[in-house]
């Protein structure tokens, strides 16, 4: 075979290139990932799971939760938003004219297509009022300064946008840093159920999680989730009822004289679910968190 060497070389180059693109490139890009820092704070991210929550990942995996749930929030954009928070001594009507004139200059300044400038026609002074939302951060700081000069308080925020965020599944997209301590990572690919990347933010109560695992429809009407009853033991109430027995509504509770007690697996899974949080602002996924008013 005269062309044997060329065929070998061509195959080697082709496979070598795919290896570079699929293995070496990503490894070079994210292989040395380390803890990062939460934006404008010294807190480390991600938070390492402890105890039950660590074991819970394996229960999540063993029960195939990732077959119906994802742990990945998508984001399609981001915007700088300016909100009026306090109009001080001004009357809404006066401020309306002032703001309209200001916003007139904004539309000349900005060329970004996704800019939303507030329509003040029906505004009669209710606060907070979003004035501007768009990609341009210079517009936000310009407007902020103009309002500050006349004694009007504004708040500039960065928000992430997208369908997942509108559904309330998160405040920002999931990034590689969120999965640093997950092994294996449970992305999932099908959303028969909701995304769970932030379930620990939405449902931080362990008992809620346990009851939901035992009887999903007792908490979420019309839920299509199967009940994971085998993670619980139904047993006869002894001299004393078990302290960790589930408190269930009548139609879901076992026969009189019996109680539902979570097994270790159920407890671990619930702890894991409560630990799922992708809610800290990071450099690669920035947003302005809502800070409690002083």
């Amino acid at each position, binding site marked *: 075979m005269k062309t044997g060497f060329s065929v070998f070389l061509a195959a080697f180059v082709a496979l070598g290139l795919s290896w570079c693109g699929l293995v070496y490139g990503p490894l070079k*890009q994210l292989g040395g990932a380390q803890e990062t820092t939460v934006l404008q704070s*010294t807190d480390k991210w991600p938070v390492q799971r402890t105890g039950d929550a660590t074991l819970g990942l394996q229960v999540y995996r063993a029960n195939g939760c990732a077959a119906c749930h994802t742990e990945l929030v998508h984001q399609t*954009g981001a915007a700088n938003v300016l909100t009026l928070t306090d109009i001080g001594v001004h009357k809404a009507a006066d401020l309306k004219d002032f703001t309209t004139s200001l916003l007139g200059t904004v539309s000349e300044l900005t060329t970004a297509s996704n800019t939303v400038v507030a329509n003040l026609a029906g505004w009669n002074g209710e606060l907070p009022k979003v004035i501007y939302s768009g*990609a341009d951060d210079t517009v936000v700081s310009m407007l902020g300064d103009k309002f500050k000069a006349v004694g009007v308080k504004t*708040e500039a925020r960065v928000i992430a946008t997208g369908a997942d965020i509108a559904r309330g599944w998160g405040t920002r997209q999931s990034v590689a840093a969120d999965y640093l301590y997950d092994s294996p990572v449970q992305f999932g690919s099908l959303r028969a159920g909701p995304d769970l990347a932030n379930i620990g933010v939405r449902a931080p109560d362990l008992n809620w999680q346990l009851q939901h695992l035992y009887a999903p429809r007792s908490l979420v009407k019309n839920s299509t989730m199967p009940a994971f009853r085998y993670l619980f033991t139904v047993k006869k109430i002894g001299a004393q009822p078990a302290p960790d027995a589930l408190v269930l509504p009548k139609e879901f509770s076992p026969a009189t004289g019996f109680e539902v007690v979570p097994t270790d697996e159920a407890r671990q899974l619930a702890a894991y679910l409560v630990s799922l949080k992708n809610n800290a602002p990071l450099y690669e996924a920035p947003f302005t968190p809502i800070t409690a008013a002083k």
Partner: protein
Amino acid sequence: MSDENKNCCSPETGEPTATRSSAPMWIIVVTLVLLFTGGLFLDSHSGWFDKNVYAPYQSREQLESIQPKSGEKQLLARGKAVYESVCGICHGSDGLGKPGQAPALAGSEWVMAKGASRLAHIPLAGVAGAIQVGGKDWNMNMAAMGAALPDEDVAAVLTYIRSSWGNKADAVTADDVKKVRAEIGKSPQPYSGSQLLKMPE
């Protein structure tokens, strides 16, 4: 040899052989155009494979421009957190200090100085010996509590003490702190009150 094969191969060579022929020009042109447009797309959308650039962001610059500005509220929230964990143990979360141990920060002329340069020396290098605060004499032994903190945290905590408990003074930036840190150098020695007074505010 059958009749069908007669036209295929000349009897002299017997076996058919592969010969070289050049690829059609249009394939080469199309490939080059595809590579070029691909390169242009990669250039504008890939963020140059930066590990911090995720879609929908397309470059480092775009990501930089969307970073939340640390507004006054955030700075104060952060300053408060740092204060409670580092300073508040002695100076008190109400800023009133502890008799014989730490002077009050509320209403202190050191805290509310015009510039923050002199004030920034205190957490970065510490104070030892006599110092007068609010008309009272103190004999201080304060370690360089802020030496290990990042510039942003020191700036945040100084801003916090300068605008809390009735104090009113300008905010402190991380650059201010950086300058003072460079001035102090690698091995900070605690200052005394008279040394501090010689510095510009």
